[in-house]
């Protein structure tokens, strides 16, 4: 009896804690949503309310009327898609080769993946900036796609390796015995099995490009060429304070693609991280 009471109490405490976490995690987002739907007098009211009294879509209309926001979305999307395609093209074959043939290259590549996490981006951006300027690739989308590609490649390779490892080598051997050549084994057996992993890794590369700020801040100077985070970062301080409504609307619009992607990606990301964490 005593045990049951104790159990019930523990459960209530946990329930309250979970509620606290939910509020903590959700509140800023809910508040931004509310700000984006409120007319200006309500936003700057001394007595703020969570639920807009007279909800309006004006701020979304104003946000989409901004040419810079639209070009920011377009640029971010283009850079994200192109860089993740390049990442996949160079990483998928490499991941396969690294798992299936164990040679000296493996250790150096794996060491690089770990070491590259250590370095702050300031150390790489200065020489890269000079290099890209000499190639006339600063303030150009080709330059930033190049940078995003090499920057997200280590983690994508890490993820892809665990997907390749999950394919039993017996499957490939059986196909060889049945008379397939290497190319047929790759295209008919390995590739179809890797598709979920390729999708997850590609989405991951897209999201890291979509979210990235530092390199874009340094490399893209023309407002027309700049990405969404750099465009939005201009609204810090007093400039943003006076236009909170459209700012909130733009931020929501910018969050939706990553949110959708992450809902799909959640499982793959965790297993990718886990395979690194658990097997040491």
């Amino acid at each position, binding site marked *: 009896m005593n045990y049951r009471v104790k159990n019930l109490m523990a459960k209530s405490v946990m329930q309250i804690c979970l509620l606290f*976490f*939910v509020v903590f995690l959700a509140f800023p987002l809910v508040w931004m949503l509310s700000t984006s739907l409120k007319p200006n007098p309500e936003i700057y009211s*001394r007595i703020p309310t969570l639920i807009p009294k007279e909800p309006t879509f004006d701020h979304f209309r104003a946000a989409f009327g901004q040419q810079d926001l639209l070009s920011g979305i377009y640029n971010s999307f283009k850079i994200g898609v192109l860089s993740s395609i390049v990442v996949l093209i160079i990483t998928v074959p490499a991941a396969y080769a690294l798992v299936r*043939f164990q*040679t000296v290259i493996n250790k150096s590549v794996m060491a690089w993946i770990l070491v590259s996490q250590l370095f702050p981006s*300031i150390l790489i951006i200065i*020489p890269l900036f000079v290099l890209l300027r000499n190639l006339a690739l600063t303030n150009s989308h080709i330059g930033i796609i190049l940078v995003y590609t090499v920057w997200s490649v280590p983690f994508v390779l890490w993820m892809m390796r665990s997907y390749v490892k999950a394919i039993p080598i017996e499957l490939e051997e059986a196909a060889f015995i049945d008379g397939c050549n290497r190319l047929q084994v790759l295209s008919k057996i390995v590739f179809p099995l890797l598709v979920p992993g390729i999708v997850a890794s590609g989405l991951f590369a897209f999201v890291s490009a979509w979210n990235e700020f530092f390199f874009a801040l340094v490399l893209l100077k023309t407002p027309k060429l700049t990405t969404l*985070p750099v465009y939005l970062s201009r609204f810090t301080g007093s400039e943003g304070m006076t236009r909170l409504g459209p700012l909130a609307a733009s931020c929501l619009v910018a969050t939706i693609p990553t949110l959708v992607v992450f*809902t799909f990606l959640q499982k793959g990301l965790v297993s990718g991280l886990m395979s690194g*964490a658990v097997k040491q």
Partner: protein
Amino acid sequence: MKRRSWLGQLGLVLPFLIPVVLFSVIPLLRGIYLGFTDYRFGFEMRFNGLENYRYMLTDSYFWSSFRVGAIWTIGTTLGQVVLGLGLAQLLNADLFGQRLARILVLVPWAMPPVIRGLMWNMVFLPDTSGPLNYLLMQAGMISQPINWLNSVAWALPSIILVGIWGGLPQSAIVLLAGLQTIPKELYEAASLDGAGVLGQFRYVTLPSLKPIITSIVSLRFMWNFNAFGLVWTLTQGGPGGRTRLPMLFAYEEGFRYGNAGYAAALGNVMVLVVSLLVVLYLRKELKESEA
């Protein structure tokens, strides 16, 4: 045969290796070298040995930015992992609202750091139109609104709170995946041996999660120490440098004042500090797991 497979591997790996070496490894090595020169953008470069580091020792901005960086890194990492462990436990128990919570944890994770910053700007608004000030005043905890991000006392704690908010979900999800791999029998055995909830946590949960916790702490530590975008949008390093993390300081030196050599030297010191701390931490963890 062996030779052929080696060549075959090289063929598949080469398209990957070339861009990584050209645009990542070489620039990085060059960046390390730049830290030992007086390079300024657009000027001749001259090797000057340890001159940058000698200057750094007398540079009060350097000391204050690394002090701020240390407080920020320890505060956010600790918060992310400890609260992440708590949240993972809750998500693993059978509770009401769990589905909602599992979706919600994705939100901060999926957001660009810049937007996390802008969003919290709205929560931190300096007058009573900001919800945080309004709620705290209604609750009687403060008598007048606080200008959170511009206050000498509150700016750093405020950005640490936002840092925890942004990193907590990922830690929680990875730890949750770890929790789900712990066999139920272990808990049953511990409870038969008389372990209560706390005892089970201490003797079953913690030891089982140890490798995951170790790797999350190391990764988080490195990521937090090198953070930029979030703090840039929240405070730009202000007020008076109270939130100027090492990355912000190095960015300003390099790209605002053009002192590329000095900025690279700061980068070198950042690598040194982080790798030293991570190595010390990993050694301690390994020793404990052997003992």
